[in-house]
């Protein structure tokens, strides 16, 4: 199992209203530290028209990280592809892969806020066909094939023969679609380990049914992760922060869903609080290195082979973050590197 570090959304929140210039200066520092601690990748996240200045331009921010680092891969986790112009994104993807010497991990998600689609004149109900259309264009753009009816070809080509594509998968439909194409998946932090295992199994079953080669596909998941030498210190520092993040940042966006996939938002505060507590209790890995290693090994046993560890929780200081990142990168990551086995290799 590999551990990437996440998620940077460059938010200046109500509880931590730092200047955006400061946040982006820290992004360069954070990326250099991530590289130093041995993380293979750092992941960005996208939203737009939001009060906290959430990052809407992942590829531009990716170019900045590329210029600040030399080995670290740059993950978009995730770019809301149906909200974009596919030709514009294809140009950006190929350019970023060149600028970074082949360090792009391109993660995409559908997006779910009406307001974001509406501001751009796109109907939310068109998001699934727009996603498929854009993914087809990206595939052609990466191979130098014509992307328009009149035969236009995107140049430059990317450095990587195939820029890895990751699809955010919250429900079974998305998992099955990713499996048919052979894309890697990024499961949600709203999935507990058991559910993650079911979805990984569904992915492989679907790929087999369609005869898709998924030997290069990664089974990724988002997890809130915080490591401290002392387990109780980890909990007391981070759980209140995580709770406030889940309630302030995610609740308003109907990010959390109940077991039936029904979104929970500010309109149902009781359910929202309960869902947030479940994420904290079941879907996070918080504590001493030993505790976090144990939790990640459990996750690996369910077939997940990549974790985007969400240690960046907005309100922590940089020294706190770097200490947690260092322990995660140098003590936890090596201990779980061999954990788990991909389904099919078992």
């Amino acid at each position: 199992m590999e551990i990437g570090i996440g998620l940077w959304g460059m938010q200046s929140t109500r509880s931590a209203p730092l200047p955006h210039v400061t946040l982006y200066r820290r992004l360069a520092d954070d990326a250099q530290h991530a590289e130093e601690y041995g993380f293979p990748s750092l992941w960005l996240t996208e939203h737009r028209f939001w009060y906290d200045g959430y990052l809407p331009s992942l590829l531009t921010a990716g170019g900045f990280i590329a210029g600040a680092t030399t080995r670290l891969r740059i993950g978009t986790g995730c770019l809301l592809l149906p909200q974009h112009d596919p030709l514009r994104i294809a140009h950006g993807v190929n350019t970023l892969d060149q600028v970074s010497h082949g360090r792009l991990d391109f993660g995409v998600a559908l997006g779910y806020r009406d307001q974001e689609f509406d501001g751009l004149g796109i109907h939310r109900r068109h998001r699934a066909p727009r996603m498929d259309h854009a993914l087809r264009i990206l595939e052609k753009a990466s191979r130098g094939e014509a992307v328009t009816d009149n035969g236009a070809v995107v140049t430059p080509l990317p450095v990587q023969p195939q820029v890895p594509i990751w699809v955010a998968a919250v429900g079974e439909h998305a998992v099955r679609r990713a499996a048919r194409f052979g894309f890697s998946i990024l499961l949600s932090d709203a999935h507990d380990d058991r559910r993650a295992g079911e979805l990984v199994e569904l992915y492989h079953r679907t790929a087999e049914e369609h005869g898709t080669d998924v030997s290069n596909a990664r089974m990724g998941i988002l997890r809130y992760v915080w490591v401290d030498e002392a387990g109780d210190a980890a909990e007391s520092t981070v759980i209140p922060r995580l709770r406030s993040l889940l309630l302030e940042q995610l609740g308003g966006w109907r990010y959390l869903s109940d077991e039936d996939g029904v979104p929970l938002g500010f309109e149902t505060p009781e359910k929202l609080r309960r869902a947030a507590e479940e994420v904290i209790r079941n879907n996070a890995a918080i504590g001493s290195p030993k505790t976090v290693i144990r939790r990640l090994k459990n996750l690996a046993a369910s077939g997940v082979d990549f974790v985007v560890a969400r240690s960046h929780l907005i309100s922590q200081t940089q020294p706190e973050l770097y200490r947690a990142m260092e322990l995660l990168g140098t003590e936890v990551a090596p201990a779980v590197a061999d954990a788990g086995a991909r389904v099919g290799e078992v």
Partner: protein
Amino acid sequence: MRFGIGPFSAEAFGNVGWTEAYEVMGQAARVAEESGFDSVWVAERNFTDDGYCPSAFVAAASLAAQTEALKIGVMPILGLAHPLYVAEDAAVIDILSAGRAIIMPINAVAHELAAHAIPESSYDSRFSESVRVLLDAWSARPFSFRGEHWTIPAQLDGHVENRSGMVTVTPKPAQIELPLWIGGFWDYGRRLAAELGLPMVLGAVSDNSLLGDLWGDYDRDAQASGRRPLRVLIRDVYVSNGDDPASECAHMLSRQFERYDSWGLWSGDASDFEALARGRFLIGNPDAVIEQIREIDDRCGLDKLICRMHFPGMPLHQLLRSVRLFSSEVIPEFRMPDLPHQIRQGV
């Protein structure tokens, strides 16, 4: 006078591949930062044979990470996709460069419009609407926009969230007024810049004899503002102490203008290098280039000269030699007024 370097465009040519072309851009920017330049520029074109940078924001963002003081000039094509994408990218690059961005939108060319299935007849109004949307989107206030091409927010049936009829584009640029300069490479762009009172930049394709008239027209249309407009000019520049500097770069520049010709940005015979050079290039040993700049400056009063010094196929060492010579011998003449003769001579 201020000096910029660029626009860079990272084409592959000869032995130089794309990845290396982006490295050259970064190295040149770092050298320029320590040599008296105060801005670096990246342009974009889509769907070219040689991979001309198609995403200026992405490339410019990497330059922002590699420099600390240079202004970061971005020349995105406007009017192809939704203008809010450009508005967002511009705000983000201004923040990640700590307020160093200058945005200079440029016009799409025929093959780009065709690929996006946009009729040429609608392009001017798409460009104009896009510029207005940028200004609204960067303001600190919520806004709505209703134009011929774009309605923001669209308020489509079935969207329930936020029925206020307004949008706030976030994050906001770091600068209170993000500089917006219009690439004056075609008639309509120049007129629009004048109408909106925005700085207008004349490009490498406008030859010296036209500069006075083009700026004269602009001033006449823009005079309502009562301010002296910025005079910004892009020129192709090559400096060398060799016996015949032109022969060291002529093939690269001719090739560049053949491409402008094929894109419809310029028309003429690019193989007649002398005719091409006479009107618009700044080429020679330092003294000759100083004299050429002085001639334009005396006539037009330049505020900023953006020097395109890298051409596809130019080896890095040749580029850096030209940049360093220009920096040490030419820039001080204009950037440092009344430079004492003794200091110039290195006493």
